[in-house]
């Protein structure tokens, strides 16, 4: 297709083919992939995407370097996944491994949040927030900066390997590699003290796993964002497959309003003059040229569309030049589309966002969030486990009394060393003792537990002869924070005392 002289001279006719067109992908099973050369575009959605990209990249790179004072007994990194010591720090929140359900809760919120976003605005995640999209965008900026925009890149790649092309190729890949290295490099700082690790990383002192992680992430970033790009979305990612089940007739999708655009015409003025019926689409292919996944939105909603909305910007630009109203390609939903197609001019109603489905998703999402917040702010930073010995269940003593052994585990999850009082409740004749305990009376002891540590004490409960009436009797231990540091938090934990079978 050549530039059409019939077209308004300000509008460029793009020689663009949708390489991932639904219709064309069914031919041979294996073909060498055809490259997509997304054209630069400007407009409302492009600006929105620049802002979001800057925020996401900023959060990713800066977060591990934020400091957070937790006193002398814990690391001072705001966000830290301390795998070695089994702790997760997030600003004022510290999570122990057994509190991992908070992470499960976050995953539930993430899942339901995606349902919510998808039912409201389609693949907003894919188009704006997915790291594949964000990093591909970043790599494209580098590519345009070094090799030029779409047409220049196509010319360059179809031409010979001149010195200038080699130089551009090397420069582009070098910058990509640097970005990929910085990406993989930033990841490891979430798992160790960032300044220390940065120093040891460059002096060769960092653990092997750090280098391996950086290596793998550098490689995947480079290959995925530099060379595979839309193929990751179309062939590798499961999310596009799942979400078609989440759209309904009210979901906002990037839509080519065919009722307005068709029949499309390259020769709009001539056709209008001849009294023929023409749509607003001038078939300039701008929407195809800017598409980062190489599809033609005019073929309708499809797997390859990540709803980045860049075609909306591209089309609006053309519509402005043609003096036609914007929104030939727009965010729309099936209801609005069908009404318009049926001849009832309808505008998108904001109220469609609030429908039972989205409200239920929002309720579940906020309930999960509120429950987590409540539990986070009210949770005890003390936990006690008492595990009775199972072998032997009980020991007969020389005076005929009985003794049971227990592992008493006191988890001091606070950032300071504390003293706990351990009191025995139930089995009034009994007493207890254990290594590491300071006995106050036969039924009361104190024990010191280091900050942010678990203390494991072996304790023995002894019952005098002929006082155990049952094969299994209940007793409990009350563990209370004491001393000037403690704030009196206490927990009563029940367990059992085993004895011989009563005949």
């Amino acid at each position, binding site marked *: 297709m050549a530039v059409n002289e019939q077209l308004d001279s300000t509008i460029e006719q793009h020689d663009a083919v949708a390489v991932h067109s639904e219709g064309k992908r069914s031919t*041979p*099973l*294996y073909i*060498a992939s055809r490259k997509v050369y997304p054209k630069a575009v400007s407009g409302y959605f492009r600006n929105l995407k620049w802002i979001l990209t800057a925020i996401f990249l900023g959060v990713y790179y800066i977060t591990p370097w934020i400091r957070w004072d937790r006193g002398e007994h814990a690391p001072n990194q705001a966000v830290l996944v301390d795998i070695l010591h089994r702790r997760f720090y997030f600003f004022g929140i510290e999570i122990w491994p057994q509190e991992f359900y908070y992470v499960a809760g976050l995953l539930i919120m993430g899942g339901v949040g995606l349902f919510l976003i998808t039912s409201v605005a389609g693949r907003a995640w894919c188009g704006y927030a997915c790291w594949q999209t964000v990093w591909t965008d970043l790599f494209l900026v580098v590519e345009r900066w070094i090799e030029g925009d779409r047409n220049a890149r196509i010319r360059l790649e179809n031409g010979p390997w001149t010195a200038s092309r080699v130089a551009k190729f090397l420069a582009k890949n070098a910058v990509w590699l640097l970005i990929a290295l910085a990406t993989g490099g930033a990841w490891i700082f979430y798992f160790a003290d960032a300044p220390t690790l940065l120093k040891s990383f460059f002096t060769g002192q960092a653990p092997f796993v750090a280098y391996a992680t950086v290596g793998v992430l550098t490689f995947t970033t480079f290959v995925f964002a530099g060379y595979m790009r839309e193929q990751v979305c179309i062939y590798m990612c499961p999310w596009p497959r799942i979400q078609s089940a989440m759209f309904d007739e009210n979901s906002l999708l990037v839509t080519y309003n065919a009722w307005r655009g068709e029949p499309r015409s390259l020769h709009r003025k001539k056709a209008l003059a001849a009294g023929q019926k023409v749509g607003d689409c001038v078939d300039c292919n701008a929407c195809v040229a800017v598409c980062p996944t190489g599809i033609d939105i005019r073929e309708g909603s499809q797997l390859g569309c990540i709803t980045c909305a860049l075609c909306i910007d591209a089309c609006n630009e053309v519509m402005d030049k043609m003096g036609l109203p914007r929104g030939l390609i727009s965010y729309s939903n099936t209801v609005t589309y069908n009404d318009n197609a049926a001849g009832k001019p309808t505008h998108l109603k904001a109220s469609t966002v609030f429908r039972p489905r989205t409200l239920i998703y929002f309720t579940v999402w906020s309930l999960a969030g509120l429950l987590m917040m409540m539990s986070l702010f009210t949770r005890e930073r003390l936990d006690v486990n008492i595990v009775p*010995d*199972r*072998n*032997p269940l009980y*020991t*007969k*003593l*020389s*005076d*005929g009394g009985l*003794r049971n*052994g227990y592992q008493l585990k006191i988890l001091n999850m606070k950032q300071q060393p504390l003293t706990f009082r351990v009191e025995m409740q139930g089995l009034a004749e009994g007493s207890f003792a254990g*290594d*590491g305990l300071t006995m106050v009376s036969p039924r009361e002891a104190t024990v010191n537990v280091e900050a942010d540590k678990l203390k494991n004490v*072996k304790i*023995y409960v002894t019952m005098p*002869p002929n006082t155990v009436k049952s094969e299994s009797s209940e007793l409990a231990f009350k563990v209370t924070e004491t001393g000037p540091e403690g704030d009196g938090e206490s927990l009563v934990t029940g367990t059992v005392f085993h004895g011989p079978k009563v005949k």
Partner: protein
Amino acid sequence: MSKRERDEISGTETTGHTWDGLKELNTPLPRWWVWTFYVTIIWALGYSIVYPSWPLLTTNVKGLWNWSSRGDVAASLSAAQGAQKEWLDKINAADVNAINADEQLRNFAVAGGAAAFKVNCVQCHGSGAAGAVGYPNLNDNDWLWGGSLDAIYTTIQHGIRSTDDGSTRDSAMPAFADGVLDATQIDQVANYVLKLSGNEADEAAATAGAQLFTDNCASCHGADGKGMRDFGAPNLTDSIWLRFDAPTKENIVAQISKPHHGLMPAWAAKLDDATIKQLAVYVHSLGGGE
């Protein structure tokens, strides 16, 4: 080159092979697949040079790196031993009481002793060290040869009635039925022993048995029947019996008439000193240690 035939329906070339009129489409493998295949061949060549590969008649090609799974295990084991060396050196240098007094050393010894116990001791004493009839329960506070750290350490080192250790703990209760006491006298002594431990007994027989006990038994079990650890003679006044579950007269008569004697191997020749020390600390930690 001959002209290639194209399948009309799919538009794909055929290979030219025909079987009973069926033609094979020439669908090439994807490039990435072919290249991956070539890479695996090159990888296999390198692998077979570096690692053990070709079988020979009696052995095999060892490979440049001389790697073997046995060598790998040996390296892991020596690495584990190396990691423990710091602690084992301290345990070797200290005596059992010093080990028990140091919290860190004690934790290490209890864990190491528990592991060694599961390998060497559970066959008789049980995995919970609760023993069985004839095999002492190590959890309770009744000790035949002493429950202090030093006594436990000595017992494990030299064993009890061990035939291959000159310093072993040794004693033997005579078989009183072999002409020492007659059946009536044994019955009287048994009644007295029942009474000693607070069990039901025939008062008249027990009274007669008291004198017999003083004459025949007190030299080892003590005048009060509380036993003597020097001879490993059990305390007969408590609730714990080694040879039977229930203290009946029949059981006691059987033991007086023809006693059973326990045997424990001497471990000094079989285990290193650090292991024996750890075992002693572990057994002492089970709740009955003195």
